[in-house]
């Protein structure tokens, strides 16, 4: 128990000791209970929220820990979603290869993230230019995919569909006694809950490992990190690929959940969303995980009940919460919970710095 906790807890994450893990277990149990008791619509709707959590966690990892603010999460989301759509449409549900399609999509995301990351980090691009380069990639993909309408833009049986996107591809399936069982509805929900939990714990372990230390070092001072023997470029690269692959995972899950993917998941407004979730929640992994679900729920609720004031209210809520908790609403909350357990290790309070350092005036 101790040694497991030692892996999961550390300077790079908030939350430690019994109160925290008790709460997390409760949350997990609650989520499972919800999946059993709630109506099928509510469950599916929650699956939808969970789908996005991976992308947000990925960003929290590369931004919160490593200081890389990428606008490219949506690009990899799109690549993941489109790859899954294309592969699964071509192979069809009968083939039972949807899982293979999902894995191959992830591989494609990893490969494209590696190519972009190599270009960016080993090409010496840094700071805000990383954000803008990734944004340009996202917008370029969106613009390109939007115009791929018509039969001439087809890969095998899958028409890219331009602005309309691709729809009606098969959901994820698992082979079961010679049959292919669709993972939709409740089974998808439980799968997602467990997968989110695994991803979360894995990222926590990674964050508190040497990798996490290295990323923090690079975020805080590349000069000093380099002088201490950290390979700055390689570390930035690894953080970027890990975060981007998680975005791709969200993308393919989204495609599997709704049997739909379209280019506007890569537009400017979509690209800003993960950044908003992470910044408003707090760049900590736990804060982001909880915050993303809450924010998605909130904005959906506003869209239902807020009529024309939905977006205005959403904007006001964001403004107020950032004014109130500049470090992120949920991060602030979590620190409260942490301090209930008594003042433990006084050293575990990193304040995060962003990659958007004030740029110098250049006159």
């Amino acid at each position, binding site marked *: 128990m101790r040694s497991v906790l030692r892996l999961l807890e550390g300077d790079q994450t908030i939350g430690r000791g019994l109160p925290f893990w008790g709460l997390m277990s409760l949350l997990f149990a609650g989520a499972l209970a919800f999946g059993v008791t709630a109506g099928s619509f509510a469950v599916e709707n929650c699956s939808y929220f969970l789908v996005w959590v991976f992308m947000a966690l990925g960003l929290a990892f590369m931004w919160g820990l490593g200081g890389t603010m990428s606008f490219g999460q949506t690009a990899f989301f799109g690549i993941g979603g489109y790859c899954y759509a294309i592969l699964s449409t071509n192979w069809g549900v009968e083939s039972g290869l949807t899982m293979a399609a999902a894995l191959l999509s992830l591989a494609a995301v990893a490969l494209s993230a590696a190519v972009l990351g190599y270009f960016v980090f080993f090409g010496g691009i840094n700071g805000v230019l990383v954000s803008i380069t990734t944004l340009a990639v996202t917008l370029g993909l969106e613009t390109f995919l939007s115009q791929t309408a018509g039969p001439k833009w087809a890969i095998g049986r899958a028409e890219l569909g331009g602005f309309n996107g691709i729809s009606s591809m098969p959901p994820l399936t698992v082979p079961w006694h010679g049959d292919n069982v669709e993972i939709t509805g409740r089974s998808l929900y439980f799968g997602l809950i467990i997968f989110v939990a695994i991803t979360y714990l894995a990222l926590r372990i990674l964050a508190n490992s040497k990798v996490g230390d290295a990323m923090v070092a690079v975020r805080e001072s590349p000069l000093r990190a380099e002088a201490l023997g950290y390979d700055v470029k390689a570390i930035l690269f690894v953080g970027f690929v890990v975060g981007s692959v998680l975005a791709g995972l969200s993308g393919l899950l989204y495609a599997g959940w709704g049997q739909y993917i379209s280019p506007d998941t890569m537009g400017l407004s979509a690209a800003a969303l993960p950044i908003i979730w992470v910044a408003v929640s707090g760049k900590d992994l736990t804060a982001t995980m909880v915050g993303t679900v809450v924010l998605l729920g909130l904005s959906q609720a506003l869209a239902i009940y807020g009529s024309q004031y939905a977006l205005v209210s959403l904007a006001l809520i964001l403004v107020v919460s950032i004014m109130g908790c500049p470090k992120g609403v949920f991060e602030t909350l979590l620190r409260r919970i942490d301090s209930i357990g008594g003042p433990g290790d006084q050293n575990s309070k990193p304040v995060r710095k962003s990659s958007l350092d004030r740029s110098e*005036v250049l*006159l």
Partner: protein
Amino acid sequence: MDDVLRLRKLHAGYGGGAVLQGVDLRVGRAEIVAVLGRNGMGKTTLLKAVMGLLPCTGEILFLGQEIAKLPSHVRARRGLGYVPQGRGLFPSMTVADNIAAGLSIGAIRRSRGDTFKGAIEDLFPIITKRKSQIAGTMSGGEQQQVAIARALIGKPSLLVLDEPSEGIQPSIVQRISEAIRQLNEDHGQAVLIVEQNIEVIAALAQRCYVVENGRVVDEMRVDRTSVKSLQEALSV
């Protein structure tokens, strides 16, 4: 009431606990006063409080007027010239612009004498020789020289110096000390200086305070022979 600066029961800190715990200190007319103390004892904090860069309570009289409630830039315009620790230049502006920023403030601009400006430039040849270099690319000592020049050129009533000799080569340290003493003798320039270089203090200061944990623990007169006693005071 002849003092240029007088602090009474000054408390100041950074939001958390107070660092300065009731400092009393004065700088008389035409006086050079040094503040000594080990690392982290609150010297920089003291100067920042004087400059209005920190929230503080207590009294700060400057030229007979209470300035504790005034914002920083107003204090500076009344005649405080500051050299922060660690140079504090505007790193991506040119040397010339850095100097110009020191010269540009209303009252100072009006009273600027070109001969004085010339004298400063003579003292620091670097500011004419390198006037279009970006300040942030200069060597440590070069930057320090520009920072001192930027403060001097505004002809302040009180010079507030935080470890001005840091990183400067010995010959120039001597020249700067010499020049400040000259200003003090000829024009009655008052100076409040934090310095670790005992020779500089011995050469310049008339009086000094020793700060320990945010309090003044000692005050003494300085003359050229007191290097030893200063050293002792510092190792308490």
